[in-house]
């Protein structure tokens, strides 16, 4: 398939999601910000009052970029998980798409494009919030769209795969509670990873969220150096591998 055809198809799928989102964006915004902003304020200001310094900065400052990454991750994970499950099982949205000239790669490309946009939008709003508290210290923060866009592939791909494989809604929750939540707790959002036992710290360095959190923190604070490049390469590598993951599961559901 030509790149042009892929792009045209992806844009049509993106448009469908956008039209649907227009109908419920108020509740979507509310749901996606209630929790992370509560976390930021309660933990950053409340708990933060009892934490002297963390890696040379205030606790509030430390957790802000991590929560930004997590907000974006959750925004795409829950949307890609639940919406895709519904599009495959409760309504015929994908079935209708597949009877048109659209193919599975075009549909997936459209979902990635859409989730990238969601990640950017929800990340940007959270960023404004963080900026209002004076937690942005560098113009390098303008490059935050890079980890946010990558989030739209890194966490969309596994969620799409899980949604295509899940037989029930409950099975989606296994993924959220057994994979996403633990990753959120240990990936360096709330404390530096080097404080973990060595084996666990090594494991965490293989998680994609660890690298989006690190990269976001480095950009927000202007700590530009080799680690930025290493985090970026990890993320690009993950994205290149993960992007293919849902294809076969989708083909088994839509064109068997």
């Amino acid at each position, binding site marked *: *398939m030509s790149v042009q*055809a892929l792009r*045209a*198809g992806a844009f*049509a*799928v993106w*448009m*469908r999601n956008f*039209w*649907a989102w227009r*109908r*419920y964006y108020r509740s979507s915004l509310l749901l996606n910000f209630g929790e992370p902003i509560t976390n930021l304020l309660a933990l950053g200001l409340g708990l933060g009052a009892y934490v002297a310094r963390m890696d040379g900065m205030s606790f509030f400052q430390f957790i802000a970029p991590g929560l930004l990454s997590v907000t974006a991750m959750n925004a795409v994970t829950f949307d890609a998980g639940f919406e895709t499950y519904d599009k495959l099982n409760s*309504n*015929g*949205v994908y*079935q*209708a*798409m*597949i*009877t*048109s*000239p*659209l*193919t599975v790669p075009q549909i997936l490309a459209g979902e990635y494009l859409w989730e990238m946009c969601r990640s950017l939008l929800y990340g940007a709003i959270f960023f404004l919030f963080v900026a209002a508290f004076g937690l942005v210290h560098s113009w390098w923060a303008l490059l935050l769209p890079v980890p946010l866009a990558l989030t739209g592939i890194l966490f969309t791909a596994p969620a799409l795969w899980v949604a295509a494989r899940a037989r029930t809604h409950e099975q989606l929750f296994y993924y959220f509670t057994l994979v996403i939540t633990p990753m959120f707790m240990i990936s360096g959002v709330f404390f530096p990873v080097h404080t973990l036992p060595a084996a666990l710290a090594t494991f965490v360095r293989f998680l994609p969220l660890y690298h989006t959190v690190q990269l976001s923190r480095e950009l927000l604070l202007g700590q530009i150096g080799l680690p930025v490049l290493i985090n970026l390469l990890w993320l690009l590598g993950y994205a290149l591998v993960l992007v293919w993951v849902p294809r076969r599961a989708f*083909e088994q559901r*839509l*064109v*068997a």
Partner: protein
Amino acid sequence: MSDVVVAQGLTKRYGALEAVKGISFTIPQGLCVGFLGPNGAGKSSTIRMISCLSPITSGTLTVFGEAAGISRSQIKARIGVVAQEDTLDPDLSLIENLLIYARYFGISPHRATGRAEELLAFMQLADRKRDQVRELSGGMRRRLVIARALMHRPELLILDEPTTGLDPQARLLVWESLRQLKGEGVTILLTTHYMEEASRLSDTALVIDHGRILAAGTPLDLIEREVGAEAMEIAQPQADDAALLDHLGAAVRRHDRQGELLVVYAANSGDLTARVAELAVRPRQLLIRPTHLEDVFLTLTGRGLRE
């Protein structure tokens, strides 16, 4: 006249299950072909392969002269599909459902808007166009699905049980619109459980069961060939069937037990009437009626429930 669809030795297997067992048929341009068969007969598998939604296992299948396959977007662009399940987009309004579907086909928004208005009027849905799909009745949803399948002016329209669950009025409206489309030269492939629908709409009917084509022809041909023009329904205990059939002899071409009724299809209806008149004890109830496609269907596919 050219053939829009040509299948030869077409087979579909899902693991150990062979859903379609080497069938061959053609769908000529401009005609309406009906696929008749019980649930699980292989109809849906066949139309999914024609729609390029399912890879073929073996045999050949060409649509518009090209080999069908799941990546054949150029074939899909010329086919309109009305699936058995409701595949409307529940998050969008009626008009948005049509416009977004046109996007999937790469139709420009300007052209799509005109076409959508035209089709909503054609399907008598124009006054509901801004409503949410979930507010529509079953008949309206069905009409909207058909309107959507026509957005890109398909040359082949494939309908999988288009009127299942509709009331008689809604069904008539769907039939009328299908006839009109046929008049415009659209080739139609239809699956249905309703024999009346098949007789009214299809030029050719294929009776399919257990993955094979049992009979094919115009509805009238099929009736003539399989059951003849007239049937006699006789209410009597099943135990008496053998004796009665023996007496009726060559006047009967085929017979069939339907619950408390014995249905005999006449080889020669005059002869049959005469022989019944000779009976010493007349059956409790006796009715001579014209045959219809349902007789063909039940005779060929049997009476056992499938699900």
